[in-house]
């Protein structure tokens, strides 16, 4: 019993993910983190310095005493701008695949420090960025499309066995959907189908496309969309693990995020979730979108599995 559980566990985490997906995930994450930092730079002093809107003592009260931040100690606008500059540079290095695990560790540190310094400007997407950065520390991010690897002429020998943290990214994405569906089912407006009507009246977040906005006057539209949202968030994290249903689940989740992006102003949340969905891609998907050369037999799924087995045997 224990042995068979261990086998299933190992097959799931150590023998089924393609390391190229980790590199693809790295690139999409890096693009988003660069945008994330660029939007912080103009208001750096206002959000994070001692001359800003939140004093250190208030920030500590807001977050709780156990949270730590570098910016409880570095408090001047100049030092904060310098740190954001380094953060940005590390985002660029991550994009080009230069010592990406180190960059991920540093990005995680920056995210923790900036978020803990001013929790009032953050929301769910900041948590996703932070967790993804943490999980990327354990991924073979420079397996492909890496400038540092190209310049050094080294060939990657990473296999599925090194890509177990991609499963953790997938689980994190599934947890977000499931938790969100659960929270929604506790609300009366989500259960009676009127939640999206009320959301469509939020003048600050809603209203990117006025034409779509009119649709939300029709009860059958907002009720179907409300219940559809709950259905997607509740079912995708369960059904996405069934191989035959993986692609329909990915399409449903991506449609949900693109729909929200079309109608609402929620900064990068939809895009970081779409990046998270990339973690569910398979080698066959890569082939479909032609990210793999037809003659690249050294990295075929069967070759990856073979290398993995050899490693496990050793």
């Amino acid at each position: 019993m224990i042995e068979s559980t261990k086998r299933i566990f190992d097959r799931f985490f150590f023998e089924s993910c393609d390391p190229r997906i980790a590199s693809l995930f790295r690139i999409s994450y890096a693009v988003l983190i660069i945008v994330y930092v660029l939007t912080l730079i103009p208001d750096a002093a206002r959000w994070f310095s001692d001359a800003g809107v939140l004093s250190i003592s208030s920030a500590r009260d807001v977050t709780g005493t156990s949270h730590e931040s570098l910016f409880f100690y570095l408090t001047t606008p100049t030092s904060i701008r310098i740190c954001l500059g380094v953060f940005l540079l590390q985002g660029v290095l991550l994009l080009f695949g230069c010592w990406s695990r180190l960059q991920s560790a540093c990005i995680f540190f920056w995210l923790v420090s900036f978020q803990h310094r001013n929790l009032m400007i953050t929301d769910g997407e900041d948590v996703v960025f932070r967790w993804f950065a943490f999980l990327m520390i354990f991924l073979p991010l420079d397996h492909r499309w890496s400038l540092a690897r190209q310049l050094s002429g080294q060939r990657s020998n990473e296999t599925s066995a090194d890509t177990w943290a991609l499963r953790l990214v997938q689980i994190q994405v599934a947890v977000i959907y499931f938790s969100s569906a659960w929270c929604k089912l506790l609300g009366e407006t989500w259960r009676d189908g009127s939640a999206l009507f009320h959301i469509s009246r939020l003048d600050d977040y809603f209203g990117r496309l006025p034409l779509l906005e009119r649709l939300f006057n029709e009860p059958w539209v907002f009720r179907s969309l409300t219940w559809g949202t709950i259905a997607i968030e509740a079912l995708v994290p369960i059904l996405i693990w069934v191989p035959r249903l993986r692609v329909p689940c990915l399409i449903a989740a991506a449609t949900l995020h693109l729909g929200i992006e079309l109608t609402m102003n929620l900064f990068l949340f939809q895009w970081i979730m779409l990046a998270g969905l990339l973690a569910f891609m398979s080698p066959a998907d890569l082939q479909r979108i032609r990210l793999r050369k037809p003659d690249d037999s050294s990295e075929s799924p069967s070759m990856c599995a073979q290398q993995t087995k050899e490693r496990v045997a050793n």
Partner: protein
Amino acid sequence: MKRVGQRLFIVLTVFVMVIQSIPDHGGVSRIGSSGENRFLGENRFLGERCQTYLDRVGLWQRPWTLFAPDPRKDFGWLSADLTASDGSSTRWTSPFWPELSVYDKFVGFRSLNYYSRFRSPLIQSVSDDLADYIVSNESPYRSTTRVELAFSALEALPNEETPYPRRDETITMLVIKPLAVRDYDASSTE
């Protein structure tokens, strides 16, 4: 040995992810609001020591509310009445989001998050800090002697005849919540 360590790490990470995301039925509405003057409600499934450790290392997350359990039904903004030493006064207001372009809303998203937080009760020093910041950075006066900060919101009222009114038929009520009143020496803000 390495594989055993990896297995342990995986199990622990998944446990931490899942346990922190389970909605606490009493706590969902508290998260993101005032719960004990903090944004982060306590997780009843994890011991305090364990949660404190996760908070410290930045591996915390909370239930993913995302407009749950119920979306709010108001539109709010901040205003500050500034009084100068000569008795003249002016009003500062936070950005009026519906009038901003898509680009400005995107770039100013952090401001939207920040100002929205004042909808919920906060510790007093947060409002005082903002009042001080406005006096230092937004006041047109050489010396400001008083600032009165408030959060205003247009709350949609329930309508039994038309529960889902069109935008222009929505009945709203203006609610003003005073946040801070700060007095300054004329010399200190010059």
